[in-house]
């Protein structure tokens, strides 16, 4: 199909029969995909040099709708798979997308070690506090006492602090945004892609069908309003009102040598060339 008369963002969407998508009405994943594609558009990424990698889960279905090289890997394995792609072809822009269960539970070890290597990948974690694809089980980010199908009496386990783990494991940029703050989210994704090294965007999202319904959080709109009312910019003053709100924006940024570049130096050294 020709995309001549369509907005620029359609450049990155597969228009040949991939729609309608599989996501539930009111799901936040579409908003994240929208922000992603707008980030690609504004950065004018060459879609023939772009590879979007995912694991398994609702969030991991996003690459199937994108018109670039797309790599729908195994549950939890998006990051090691993307590591192979990036090392084999460092010239490609490699973006990884996954959910809280995929990236942090089954893929938790890969998450830590990919951050430690500081390889140039941009990771978008869509955090909707539960496993959506399998029907609403608790995940490593489900709040204590929240209800899930495998936590019918309330979740006992404390949630992971994604940004603190990413930071201490070695990510060079850690940001957070939400599906309510769609433009802000796009800017966070842009920043992550532009920054060299392992970068993490936590995109807090609503799952009205499962997590929202089980925890009586109301409709998708109500959940978005909750995200609006319970988050605050990192730049906002430290008032009593802001104390218990989730910070959004750039949570951590530093500079460190990137893995594929360091590897090129290793190759020179092995060849006996001057580094």
């Amino acid at each position, binding site marked *: 199909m020709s995309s001549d008369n369509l907005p620029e963002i359609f450049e990155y969407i597969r228009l040949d029969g991939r729609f309608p998508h599989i996501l539930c009405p009111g799901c936040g994943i579409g908003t994240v995909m929208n922000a992603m594609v707008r980030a690609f558009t504004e950065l004018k990424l060459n879609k023939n040099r772009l590879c979007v990698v995912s694991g398994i889960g609702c969030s991991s279905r996003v690459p199937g709708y994108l018109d670039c090289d797309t790599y*729908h890997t195994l549950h939890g*394995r998006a990051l*090691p*798979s993307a*590591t*192979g792609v990036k090392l084999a072809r460092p010239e490609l822009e490699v973006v990884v997308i996954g959910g809280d269960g995929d990236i942090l539970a089954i893929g938790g070890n890969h998450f830590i*070690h990919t951050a430690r290597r500081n390889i140039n990948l941009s990771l978008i974690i869509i955090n909707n506090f539960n496993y959506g694809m399998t029907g609403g089980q608790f995940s490593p980010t489900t709040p204590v006492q929240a209800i899930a199908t495998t936590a019918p009496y309330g979740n006992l386990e404390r949630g992971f602090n994604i940004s603190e783990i990413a930071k201490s494991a070695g990510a060079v940029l850690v940001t957070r945004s939400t599906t309510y703050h769609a433009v802000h989210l796009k800017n966070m994704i842009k920043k992550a892609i532009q920054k060299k090294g392992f970068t993490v965007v936590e995109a807090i999202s609503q799952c009205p069908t499962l997590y929202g319904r089980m925890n009586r959080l109301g409709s998708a709109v109500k959940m978005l309003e909750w995200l609006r009312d319970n988050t605050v910019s990192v730049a906002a003053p430290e008032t009593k009102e802001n104390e218990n709100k989730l910070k959004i924006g750039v949570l951590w940024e530093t500079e460190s040598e990137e893995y594929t570049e360091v590897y090129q130096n290793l190759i020179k050294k092995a060849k006996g060339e001057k580094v």
Partner: protein
Amino acid sequence: MELLSGNEACAIGAIRAGVRFFAGYPITPSTEIAEYMAHELPKIGGIFIQMEDEIASICAMNGATAAGIKAMTATSGPGFSLMQEGIGYSCMTEVPCIIVNVMRGGPATGLPTRPAQGDIMQARWGTHGDHPIVALVPWSVAECFHLTVQAINISERLRLPVIILLDEIVGHMREVVSFPEKVDIYQPPKPTQGPDEFLLYGDDTNYDGPVVGFGEGYRIHLSGLTHRKDGFPTNDPKTIAWKMERLKNKIEHNKDWLWNFFYTDLGAETIIVCYGSTARSAFDAKKIYEKKSGKSIGIVRLCMIWPFPYERLTTLLRGAKKIIVPEMNQGQLSNEIERTVSPDVPVITVNRVDGEMLTPEEILNVLG
């Protein structure tokens, strides 16, 4: 001429066959392959990466091959167990995958430094679902080199996982060998169609049609979900059946040229069917027995166990009165051999699972 171990010969064979990426995790008795790769690959601009575990290793290797470069990993039993999901992913996405599994005693941690041939059935059926697989079993240092080259070419051509099964004896033993500088390398063809017409799974005849990797402008979609010819997921029963037939036929349509075995003296009444290091004991036993008795012993030595050469073995073993199958397991491949011969022909197994090598004497005991 060089004095080399089987593990080193595998690594050298892989590099000669064009492997430029290795992802692995340390595990006895395969680690020398990773160490060799870490030392040599950067010198030729290749990549070695030590991953956080074997799951990550096979995924990184799959990612590198999906991006169009030849890649390999090496492991042993416990790591091979962890790699099973990545093997299935290679089957489904039809992206090459090369695993050297240097077999040690199992189950679990088992006998890290001791030989075994216990992963014969795991190599065939370790990952879930019906799937194609090729497994090669070298018996010498020279064959480690040649079968690794062959493994890489088969994997590139048929787009499926190929497993090289060494046992610890073959992996660690040293022999004086010399290898050719140049070997035949299979390069898959590139499509003549543009990205809008090209179908990644479009070749339904020999399954060795054109392929592309990431970054080649074809904007491909690889998925472990059962998919259509264009790579996108499906629940349509007819399309699912097409995909499953396709995976099966990759072997069915190509087994005649795939099968790889060696045989001698098949006119004998007794034939030993063997592979890997136990084949060395079998040849010793044959020599000793023939000298002592004046009677000949036949041998079929399998260089490839999967696909298993059922039809060929039925023909080759037709005249045999007795078949002997020595294995360093409790009888894995012997069941397949029983399926190929008439029920009146006894298949006598000689098994050893105590971490020691299966000796010529043990085979001589059943030769009588």
